[in-house]
Every structure is written in C-alpha cells, then in structure tokens.
C-alpha cells in the first residue's frame, strides 16, 4: 500500500500517520459520500501528525541545530561561527539588522550555499553540504525572501510539483503505455491533497490562474502552501510577511499557528520585530554574522545589546 501512495511514498515508511492518511484517501476514492467527513480538510494530514512529530523528538534532540557555522564571501564574513538550535514543534524567530547574515544562514542550512566550516544537524543527522534537494527530501523545506513562483505555471501546477518522489517523475513511467495509468492514479491522489491545501489557504478560487498573475500576498500564501505539499517537518520561512497587507498577514499568521499546533516546526526570518516577539516562543538575534542573543521574547526585549544593535550602537 505504501508503495503506491503518491506524495507520501517515502515518508510512509517511518511515519505511520502518513500511511493512515493515504488509506483514508483511498477509502474516499471508493466512497464519495464520505468526503463530507473531511470538513476540516488539510487538517486531516496534519492532525494525525501532531502526536507523531512530538513523539519523535521526545528525546530532546533539537529538530535543527547549527554549530559554529561560518561563511565568507570574498573578504566579507557573512556568518561568523554561529551556533543555535531549533526546538521541534515550536516557532522560532531569527531577527537581525540588514546584513546580519540571516539569509546566508538560511542558504547554508538548506544547502544553497556551502559553509566554509561548521555543521548543520537535522534531527541529529549531519546534513552539512548536502544538495538542496536532499535536504528538502529529509523534511526541511524553505521558502524564499522574495516569493518565487513558477510564473508561467498555474497555481495548480505549482502545487502539484510539491509532493516528493511522484511515480510519474520517472521518465519511463511517464511515457510507457500501461504503466502510465498508475501514474495517473497517483496524480489523482496528489490532486486531491492539492485541492484540500488550496481550500485550507483559501486560494482555491485562484487555482487555474497563472502564478505570475497573483498579487504579492497571494504569492506568499501559494509559496507556503506549495512548501507544505512536500510534506515537510521543518519549514524555514524567509520573510514570509514582507510586503503583505495587515489582513492577509493575520491570515498567514493564523495558518502558521494552526500548522505549528499540528506539529510542524518553524524557523522564520522577519524584520518586523513586534511580529516576531508576539508569535515566536523563542527568538534568535544575529548581528554581524554572530549570534547576539538567544532566548524568550521577553528576555530579548530586555537585552541591552539587542537594542544597541538595532539602534546602531557599539557592540562589545
């Protein structure tokens, strides 16, 4: 059964809930009437995860840890021996003035840049220097600072791209008569999840639209939804609220909180300090490539060094 589940194929082995989801979808396929049972929609995928995710990290291994990460570009040291950990199932904020090394840190974690030294650990496994696709495959998925949509593809196509290891991504399966019908069956399962996710993010009415026609805020929603289609454990969001109007920002935040409650781990980079303070349980402050402070929002707010860094004062 796990072998023919579309998107969650690989995850099925070590995530019992993924299997039960898929079997849920299967029964639905047989009995359309039961569709009403999925009123809470994308919640289906996620509610089941909660217990699983939390259980997986009960031993205290952080979901993500970086140790002494260092990266220089020419003469500029972008990230200078940074170490921190991100707890599973929590929302952690990463702030810092412009040029503090936040985006570079993201790139180093997700494999888009290779660190000069240091380590990145995902659930205790060393993923330093791995390719971005390998890291995404292990459940750590990022979004981009400026929403990067596949503009000449529709919202649906963007979403369909998300799931990992789709059977039809193999060339011979995609073209060989006979085998292709199983590809189609898998696509139907993926499609169902896509529509659930679109409903969850309230962008189903944009489904047929080209991603290039979406507004900035809608792109942010789509990007988050697309990242979720990969079935990640940890989401790294690079300024997800930049350029988003306040009402959409609230909606995005609600979604993020809902997802966190379902067991997803978040690390977000954000410029809006108030937003981070209100929504994150832990805040990391980067300054000039170094970790300046690490603690609960209240502690960070009271930290003299953080205030100085933001006001441009001297840091010892």
């Amino acid at each position: 059964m796990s072998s023919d589940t579309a998107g969650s194929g690989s995850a099925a082995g070590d995530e019992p809930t993924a299997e039960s989801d898929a079997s849920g979808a299967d029964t639905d396929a047989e009995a359309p009437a039961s569709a009403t049972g999925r009123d809470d929609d994308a919640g289906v995928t996620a509610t089941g995860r909660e217990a699983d995710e939390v259980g997986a990290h009960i031993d205290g291994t952080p979901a993500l840890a970086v140790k002494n990460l260092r990266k220089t570009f020419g003469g500029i040291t972008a990230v200078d021996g940074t170490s921190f950990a991100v707890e599973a199932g929590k929302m952690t904020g990463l702030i810092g003035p412009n040029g503090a090394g936040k985006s570079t840190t993201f790139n180093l974690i997700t494999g888009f840049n290779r660190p000069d030294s240091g380590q990145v650990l995902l659930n205790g496994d060393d993923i330093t220097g791995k390719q971005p696709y390998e890291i995404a495959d292990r459940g750590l998925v990022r979004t981009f600072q400026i929403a990067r949509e596949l503009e000449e593809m529709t919202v649906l196509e963007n979403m369909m791209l998300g799931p990992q290891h789709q059977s039809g991504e193999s060339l011979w399966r995609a073209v060989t008569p006979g085998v292709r019908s199983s590809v189609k069956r898998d696509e139907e399962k993926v499609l169902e999840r896509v529509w659930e996710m679109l409903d969850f993010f309230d962008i189903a009415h944009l489904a047929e639209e080209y991603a290039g026609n979406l507004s900035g805020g809608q792109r942010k929603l789509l990007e988050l939804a697309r990242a979720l289609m990969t079935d990640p454990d940890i989401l790294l969001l690079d300024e997800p609220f930049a350029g988003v109007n306040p009402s959409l920002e609230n909606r995005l935040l609600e979604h993020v909180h809902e997802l966190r409650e379902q067991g997803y781990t978040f690390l977000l980079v954000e410029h809006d300090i108030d937003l981070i303070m209100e929504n994150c349980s832990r805040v990391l402050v980067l300054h000039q490539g170094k970790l300046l402070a690490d603690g609960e929002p209240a502690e960070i707010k009271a930290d003299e060094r953080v205030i100085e860094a933001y006001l441009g004062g001297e840091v010892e």
Partner: protein
Amino acid sequence: MSVRDYLDRLTGTGRADTDAGAPGDGAAGTDLGIVVGLMLAVYVVFVAIGVVLGYDTNGIVNALSQVTFLTAVYALVVLALNLHWGYTGLFNIGVAGFMAVGTYTMAMATAAPDARVPGLGLPIWAGIALGMAAAAVIGLVAALPALRLRADYLAIVTIALAEIIRLTYLSSAVQTFTVFGTQLGTGGGSGIGIEADPDTVVVEFLASVPGLNVLFDAFGSVLSGMGVQQSVINNWYYAFVLLVVVVAYYWLLQRIGHSPFGRVLKSIREDEDVARALGKNTRLFKIKSFMVGCSLMGLAGILWFGSYGFINPNTFLPQVTFFVWIALIIGGAGSNTGGVVGAAMFAAVLFELPRYLASIAGDTGGLPSAPPTFARAVGALFDLEPLAFVAYGIDNIGPLRLVLVGVVLIVLMQRRPEGLLGHRKETAASIGLSRPNRSRETTDATAATDGGEEQ
C-alpha cells in the same frame, strides 16, 4: 469551466480527463485541425500557383512532396528542440552537431566494409539505433559540465561542441581509421555515402508488406496516370512515412510534457532554485531531458540528411541549427503543436514557396535573362525593364529567402514575440486538474465556501 462541468454532467463522465489543458480529446482534436488545416492551405496555395502559372502536374506534385518532406523533417527537429528549450529551458544551439553525430554514426555503421569509406556493414535498423544512442551519449558528454552553468553558457558550449564535431568529421585524420582490427571511416571532407539510405530502404520495406503494397500500388497508379514520375511517387511514400514519425514524436513529447516529469522540467525552466528547494534533483532531470532530445535530434538527422544518400561535414553547418530555431520561434516555444506549425510555416512558406516560384519562373520562361549585378538590376528598373529586375531576384532566390526570413522574424518579434502558438500554456499533468468530481458532488457548497472564508 461551467460549460465543462455541464458537459461532464451531461455525459456522466466522472473523470476529469477531458478537461481543457489536459491531453484530452477536445484539445487534441483542435490541434490536429490546426495542423491539417495549415497543410491543406499550403497545398492549395502551391497547386493554385502552379495551375495559374501553367506548371506541369509532375512539377506540382513534386513540389508538394518536397514541402511535405521538409515540413516533416523540420517538425521532427523542432519537436526535439522544444523539449530542450520550450520545456526545460536548455539553450541548445548545437542542434546540427547532434544531428551530425546521429547521421554519421548511422552512415559509418551501415556502410559496407569494402566501400570507398569502409563501415561495419550493419543493417539499417542497427545503424539507426546506434546513431540515436551516439547522439544521446554526446549529449551526455556536453551536458555533464555544461548543465551546471547558466543557460547562456550552455549555449556557448553546445555551439562550440557542434563545430568541434563538424570539424572532427572534416579532419583527414579520421578519413579512415582502424579500431580493434576493423576499418572504419568518416570520409573526411569528401563525405560518406549512405548505402542503406532510409528513403529507399523504408519504401522498399513498405512496398513488401502485404496489404500496404496494394495501397501503395493504387496510389502510385493514380499518380502515374496523371503523368507523375516514379521518383516523385517514391518521394511521396517517404513523406508519408515521415509524417507517421512526426506523429510518434508528437505523441512521445506530449506524454513527457503532460506528466509529473514534464512538470519538473517546466519548473526548471521557470526557476530552477524553486525546484531544488522543493526536493527535485534538477541536474538529473536536465540530463535526462537533454539526452532524450539529443537522441531524437540524431534520428531526425538520419531521416532528413540520411535520405539524401550522401553526407559531408558541410551538411551540418550552424545555419541548420538556426533554421530550426527560427521554426521553433515562429511556432512558439513550449507548445508541441506550435512546433509543428512553426516547422510548416518555415519550411513550406518561407523556404520552399520562394524556391517553387523561382523554379516555375525558370521553367516556364518568358523572363529576360537576369542582369549579372545588383547595380545593373536596379539600372534596369530605371530603364523601365522591371522584368529584368524580377529575373535578378529569382536568380538570387537563395539569399533573398534569408532576407524574407529576417523580415518575418523582426515583424514577429514586434507583434507576437511568443510565437504563433506560444501563448498556449499546456498544463503539465497527466490528468485534468479541476477539482475532483467525487468531492465536488457532495462538498461543493460546503468545502468551497466554508473551507475558505472562515479560516
């Protein structure tokens, strides 16, 4: 959307397969209509011009077979290139090189061991398979280093590789050589003959198939009754075969395009970093796409230049690549149907039509002899002898065609930069993507409204 839903309910088809954008019957029907309609229009124009200008039947039928042949071979290469550029965004301007590898490999594999340029003496089918494989391998060699680079660097690498290939075949060092005790050769600058040329072999094979041969005989006797020569009739047979191959290419590439594999290719074209961030091993996808496209180019080269019975390195000049690119740009990158339309527009209208007019003018006479230089031709205009100017133009129809192509390209870039059918975005999925019917029936009202606004 609503019409489709309505039709869905009418026909009671639960499946979403017939939705627009998917490779459903509806879309395929229109596309076939476009292509067939265009070809028929081309034929009508050619026949009308021939009849009006009093060209003989054999000449007209021959011109039509030429048009069909050229359209078909251009369509093959354009379709292969569309996989590279239209789908994956790989800027390959070494098309001629990959066609050369395919054709030369096939020629060297099938040449008799005792021919002027010795070969392996393999049957044509083995030659074709080897040719395609060789083109794919050379594609891999080019791809491994180049696909790590940005698109424009791939372009430089491919055009350089194509020239290296051509100059290698030109080199006298490999005119004949010995590998593992077997004599082989490329013929160097004097070229290599293709003994088993696809033209003859395929037609002979078809004429021997029971059932088909009856059809062929009937077709042949009708044409020969109209005074058409046997060689022209044979050209038609081969053109038919090529059309079948075009259909096969189209089928294959549509399947690739409308699949999760094609979806990843498309995402690479749009933004490779996004695809990587979503866990796709984009390098592997690019290599696969490149190799498949190259081997299809190899086969296209065999069917095109191989059918002339003789090739030399100058058959594969870079201009071949550029002509193919122009055809793709005219048709619209990203659309397979657009590729076929572009091939027909380029090969039939821009390339063959002027030559056709020139050959009619030459055959039917009535024009004064052409002035030897452009200055004299213009001078003739002032002497109120416009026919001499026309004769000069017809005499130089080859270069003038390129001027025509240039003008068409400029107008196209200004008026319709996406090409004739480039605006059509085909959905990269193996199924229609509208909301699955089973949830639509029951939760349409609830899911769409309350699943959305309230959250």
